[in-house]
């Protein structure tokens, strides 16, 4: 005899029909009004459910893991816990984010790295970096993400590091990518990325040219950078056919429509290279220091949903209205993931980078110890698996349990960041499922 899984959620859609959505596997089953009421009112009464649900729907609910046996939900939680442990403590690959400098040629007014020292990685640190990689004996492969400042400000250092890392025999360098403003792309840089094949380059823009040039300006003359970025994206697409160019469009409450405009601009201007070009939104969130949460200008769940709706309606941009299976954790909660600063300083989170109090150690074995307490906190408490609110939550399968940095801020600094997925908002998910079903029936 089966009962309703806690991961199976009945919804009354906006068109008057009814469905059950299963967060565990993202299945969606259509039900009648009577079945909806039976599932809502008697979720644990196996006999009532058997009696009041048609055989066809009952079988479908069982097959889609919505009606389950007594211990199924418990076993599923055990599965999630196991997957999280595997992901956090996998020792197959060493994941390195290398910042060869904190220096940058842009002067963006909101930059959180402005206070950082503009140092560059020395030859000594580069040698220590290679030793650090070799020291992780269990890891058979390693990957690199170049980060900064603007990493191409330290192009000479990048070349030396690449040469050094590629000479490591004990493990395979499986690839590299870069987060760059792309303003320093030259023929020499292109040649370097051909020699050491670059997987992807991520560039951020702040909306349309009019908005972007107000903020992402060159440090030297305060001029805007939109045109040079677009010109260099073209160069990258033309000369590096194996490299993906990923454009992150930063949007706030007032510039959300810029995303659609930029999608249109890229589609029109780079139409011969669209296979290698991606675009995604970066939601701007600004901390309200007084209240320890995101301020009212930040793009939160309701604004994000409205943004989705506008993009689908006004720009015909595809929206996946079904919440996705979420991968829990990030580099901060993964044992073999490190951010390495120009002085060989180690961090777990990009938000911590450059903050010496949040440095977890150094690649040089004889240097001072770092904040090992923070390392322990990230690795053991960084995800929601030690948080009953998360482990009891029906949305756990489609929630990444929130940003580990925000979780640490809530736990240890009295902050109040919302760690939950927007799918948990009943009205938003009702609308999303209604849109999904509506699109199906068109």
């Amino acid at each position, binding site marked *: 005899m089966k009962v309703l899984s806690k991961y199976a959620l009945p919804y009354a859609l906006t068109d008057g029909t009814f*469905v059950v959505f*299963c967060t*565990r*596997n*993202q*299945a*969606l*089953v*259509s039900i009648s009004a009577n079945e909806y009421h039976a599932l809502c009112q008697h979720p644990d009464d196996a006999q009532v459910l058997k009696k009041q649900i048609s055989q*066809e*729907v009952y079988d*479908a609910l069982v*097959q*889609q*893991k919505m009606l389950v046996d007594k211990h199924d939900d418990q076993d*599923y939680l055990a*599965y999630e816990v196991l*997957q999280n442990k*595997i*992901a956090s403590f996998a020792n*197959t690959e060493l994941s390195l984010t290398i910042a060869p400098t904190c220096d940058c040629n842009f002067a963006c007014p909101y930059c959180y790295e402005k206070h950082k020292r503009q140092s560059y990685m020395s030859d000594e640190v580069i040698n220590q970096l290679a030793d650090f990689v070799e020291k992780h004996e269990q890891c058979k492969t390693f990957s690199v993400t170049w980060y900064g400042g603007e990493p191409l400000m330290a192009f000479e250092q990048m070349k030396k590091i690449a040469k050094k890392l590629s000479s490591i025999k004990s493990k395979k360098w499986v690839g590299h990518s870069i987060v760059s403003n792309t303003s320093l792309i030259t023929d020499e840089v292109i040649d370097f990325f051909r020699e050491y094949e670059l*997987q*992807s380059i991520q560039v951020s823009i702040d909306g349309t040219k009019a908005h972007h040039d107000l903020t992402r300006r060159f440090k030297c003359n305060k001029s805007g950078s939109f045109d040079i970025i677009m010109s260099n994206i073209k160069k990258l697409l033309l000369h590096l056919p194996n490299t*993906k160019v990923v454009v992150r469009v930063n949007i706030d409450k007032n510039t959300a429509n810029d995303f659609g405009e930029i*999608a249109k601009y*890229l*589609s029109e201007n780079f139409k011969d290279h*669209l*296979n290698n*070009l*991606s*675009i*995604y*939104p970066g939601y701007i969130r600004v901390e309200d220091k007084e209240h320890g949460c995101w301020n009212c200008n930040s793009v939160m769940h309701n604004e994000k949903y409205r*943004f*989705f709706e506008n*993009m*689908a309606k006004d720009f015909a*941009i*595809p*929206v*996946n209205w*079904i*919440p*996705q*299976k979420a*991968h829990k954790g990030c580099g901060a909660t993964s044992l073999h993931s490190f951010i390495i600063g120009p002085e060989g300083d180690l961090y777990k989170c990009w938000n911590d980078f450059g903050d010496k109090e949040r440095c977890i150690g150094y690649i040089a074995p004889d240097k001072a110890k770092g904040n090992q307490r923070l390392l322990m906190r990230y690795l053991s408490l960084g995800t929601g698996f030690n948080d009953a609110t998360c482990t009891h939550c029906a949305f756990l399968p*489609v929630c990444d349990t929130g940003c580990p940095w925000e979780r640490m801020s809530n736990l240890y600094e009295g902050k109040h960041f919302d760690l939950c*997925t*927007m*799918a948990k908002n009943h009205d938003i998910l009702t609308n999303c499922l209604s849109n*999904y*079903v509506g699109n*199906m029936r068109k």
Partner: protein
Amino acid sequence: MNKNVVLREGSKVEDYSMESLLGGIADSCNFTCNNVYCSPNLCNDHAMYPGCPPNQKQLIEKPSGLNIELSF
């Protein structure tokens, strides 16, 4: 399965990832990984991690045009 009843089939990722612990399935699939169109939702039976499906044919074809999708 009646498509008027099951509007969306549940993902098999959970089954695959448990099977992968027994060594029955390739550790990783590099067929279209890092592609925004390769996700458990659009391609119902595929996940980049952990554990890939045994049959890569289940991957959907990437639509032409700019790689763009908005999701949760």
